[in-house]
């Protein structure tokens, strides 16, 4: 597995009224081709900031991010698809127009755009809702639209920032299952930020655990569960051990 994403000593410092806050400090990790990686940690540990830096949306204060071995200087819409918290659909556009949004910016021809959008709405199971506006869709449906939009330019990388945080537990697990199905079909490299341990373990090949002040990665945990994953696996002794280990790492700093 070659590294699609590589972070080398990445850091981000915010200065506020003279005080310096090290939101992310000396973070290094790699994501391989087709790998599903999660970043877990308590709120405020800098995991979203880290993701924004990998996306090229937030400048780095130290170190560098490499995408396909090339230093990242600006957003890479062709290589990186993003799925934001709370879906972030444009309310004045229909589901189909939202999915089409990244394509419409690059002036691709209309026919190709339409068929691409239709294929992706089908992939996420929303082909019957293409003409609906975001406020007419449920939370889960909005996130499916957001995922379709993230995939519309067929990027190799999908970055997801707590995409299911606004959903209740039941829908969250359902969307996780749905995401794994889509991932199996498209084989993207995924970086998934969450604060749900179950979600991270259920979805990922590798989980990075972060802690705050300064925000840093404290452990890399390989999830040795066979695929396809099933919900029952979350009840296994192995998963219990992993969950406890992550919990230990995270809660150590709270005390």
């Amino acid at each position, binding site marked *: 597995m070659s590294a699609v994403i590589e972070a080398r000593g990445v850091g981000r410092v915010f200065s506020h009224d003279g005080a310096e806050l090290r939101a992310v400090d000396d973070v290094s990790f790699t994501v391989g081709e087709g790998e599903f990686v999660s970043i877990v940690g308590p709120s405020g540990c800098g995991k979203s900031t880290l993701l924004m830096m990998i996306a090229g949306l937030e400048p780095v204060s130290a170190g560098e991010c490499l995408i396909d071995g090339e230093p990242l200087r600006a957003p890479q819409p062709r290589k990186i698809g993003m799925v934001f918290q709370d879906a972030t659909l444009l309310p*004045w556009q229909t589901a189909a127009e939202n999915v089409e949004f*990244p394509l419409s910016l690059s002036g691709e021809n209309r026919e190709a755009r339409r068929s691409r959008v239709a294929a992706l709405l089908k992939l996420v199971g929303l082909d019957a809702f293409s003409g609906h506006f975001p406020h007419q869709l449920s939370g889960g449906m909005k996130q499916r639209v957001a995922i379709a939009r993230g995939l519309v330019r067929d990027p190799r990388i999908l970055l997801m920032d707590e995409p299911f945080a606004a959903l209740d537990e039941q829908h969250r697990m359902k969307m996780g299952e749905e995401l794994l199905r889509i991932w199996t079909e498209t084989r993207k490299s995924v970086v998934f930020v969450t604060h749900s341990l179950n979600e991270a373990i259920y979805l990922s090949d590798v989980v990075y655990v972060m802690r705050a002040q300064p925000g840093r990665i404290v452990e890399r945990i390989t999830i040795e569960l066979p695929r396809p994953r099933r919900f029952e696996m979350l009840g296994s002794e192995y998963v219990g051990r992993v969950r406890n280990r992550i919990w230990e790492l995270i809660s150590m700093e709270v005390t």
Partner: protein
Amino acid sequence: MRSLAAQLICAAVLAALWETASRLKIVDPSLLPPFSVVCATLWSMLWDAQILYEVWVTGVEVMVAFLIAAPLALLCGFFLGEKPRWGEVFNPIIEFILAVPQSVFLPLFMLALGTGYTQKIVFGVTHAFFVIAVNTVAAVRTVPHPYVLLARASGASRGQIYRRIYFPAMLPLVLTGLRLGMIFNVTGILLAEMFSSRHGLGRLIFSWAESFQITRLLAGILLVTLLTIAFNEVMRAWEVRVSRGQSAGIAA
């Protein structure tokens, strides 16, 4: 649809009350002529070349003032919303001026600019400018940051971010500003006409009052009322259309 029917019934009841109160002389008919008589007068006024000319004069003033005030206020509002450093200084000033009843400045305007078109148009412009600018500042400020991030991640240029994100996100509040600006603008111009002009609908209405032509006075008021309500409703329908699913906008 249902509430529209109820509203029409309310209007009809009011008209009927007016009509009967006047016909049965519960109210002095010389002060409040029957509704039907006022309507008939209004109808005949619509065919009176002299009156139409005065309406035309006011209409042109209103349009010119709006065409000056709106682009200026939109530009200033956008600039002050986008440049927080400038906004910090000038936004409070604009809010202060918006809070002052501008009618107190009318005598000053008359002294400085006379009683012609210029004075009326300037008075309309100053009435409209501030409310449009304040709403535009608010519109820029309420563009959700995640939308901008999404656009950048999708490879949008600066121009595309303005066109594809700012414009539609700002539109509901901007339309509210333009609608209120137009109402303020009309108020300013009618006021200026009443007290400092020889021409226009405001002057006409005022002179009917001075010469105690109550029926014509009421017909004139009814005309202004109907025109402004029609404008307001068209603009509001537009606002509702562009703001579906968006939380901002739609208050006044």
